[in-house]
């Protein structure tokens, strides 16, 4: 029993290190605020740890899909609360992450991405966030979203086309 708990502990600690950055990036892209992303990332892993026994009962669902589903649900709840009031300004929120000259470029690109993503549907946003920020495979994204891989593929295509259009417009 104690050995099982130790194995579970070590496995979760390993998963934590492996997924921490990816979960943070997914949440950051979705909420657009570094501090909010920090809070939600911490909460994602705390919930995952507390609910790990329920994950073990779900045969066939990979850990990554389960973890990102927790992150997604937290993001959705958070955005719902935020939408009740005024939107939080997004400018300069990622300024503190790096202080090199490269930071300005990344910061600007991130803001552009945030604005462009606003024009997508919720499902497209989720696919783009999970795929490009979370680094999940198409199959994993399909499991997070409870959709077929074909449907996710179509959403990814439509999302990239829409982003291309939006980014093209803003560059002009």
């Amino acid at each position: 029993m104690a050995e099982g708990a130790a194995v579970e502990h070590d496995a979760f600690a390993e998963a934590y290190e492996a997924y921490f950055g990816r979960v943070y990036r997914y949440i950051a892209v979705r909420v657009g605020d570094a501090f909010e992303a920090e809070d939600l990332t911490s909460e994602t892993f705390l919930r995952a740890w507390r609910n790990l026994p329920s994950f073990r009962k779900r045969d066939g669902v990979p850990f990554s899909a389960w973890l990102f589903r927790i992150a997604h649900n937290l993001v959705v709840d958070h955005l719902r609360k935020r939408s009740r009031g005024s939107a939080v300004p997004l400018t300069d929120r990622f300024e503190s992450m790096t202080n090199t000259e490269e930071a300005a470029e990344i910061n600007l690109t991130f803001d552009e991405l945030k604005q462009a993503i606003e024009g997508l549907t919720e499902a497209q946003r989720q696919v783009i966030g999970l795929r490009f920020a979370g680094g999940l495979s198409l199959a994993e994204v399909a499991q997070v979203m409870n959709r077929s891989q074909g449907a996710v593929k179509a959403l990814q295509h439509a999302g990239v086309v829409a982003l291309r259009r939006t980014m093209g417009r803003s560059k002009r």
Partner: protein
Amino acid sequence: MNRSLEDILDQAVDRLLAGETVEDCLAAYPDVARELEPLLRTAQAVAKAAAVEPRPGFVAEARYRMRHTMSQPRGRRRWPSLSLGRRWALLVGAVLLLLVTSGMIPASANALPDEPLYPIKRAQEQVVNLWFRDDAALAGRRLDLAGHRLEEMECLSRRGRRIPPFLVRDLTEETNLAEQHMERQLALRVDLAQRLLQMSTRQQAVLEQLAEGAPPEAEEDIQQALHRVEERRQRALHVLEQQGPMEQQGPPMEQLGPPMGQHGQNGQRPKPMASPTEAP
């Protein structure tokens, strides 16, 4: 055609995310290269823009918190739930950590939540907590920590820096823990009840200032914290009233501030502080 482009785009995105260049990907699909190229360039820009990294200070603090949570039985979060052996093991580990990082500890004493040394300050606090055994001492310690959190909030606000939402939650958590320890001691320790009353009054003032300019996502945390503060305040007042006249036990009522929702005789609120998620 469109369906096949969806498939090709997905395969190309996989290759792109694996580190291949756009040119490599296009070379693999020459028949659709013209249609694919703008989409892949967009995908590349999105992946690059999304590659944001968390602050090192946050990573360290989150890891510390996670380890702390994982070191306790799931669903129970209090030190008393640990066996004596585990507490000792943790204590030894913590002391080693203390020795290893001893040079950084003095430097971290005044660190604020958005500074790199802050996780060390918090880790040191946890280590010191292990030395407190009885409820009265633990209650006092938790009140001290709540005072630290409050000072950090005030300091951040004075400097026009953003107050992270976890600080509000930690403030409430420390005071809740203090209260739990006090519940067993309160009848005997009037001084603790006085400190609880003073702390609650101070918390109320700070939280009400925060609530003034708080964005919607922070409102719930602040309102819950205010609600708890008022409950605590009433409980402390009740204990003190049972023990005897207020004059003998601490500052007069007028020095302890108004109850919730009242802001002095002229009804004016104090100047708002920088709130959680509010950029300077």
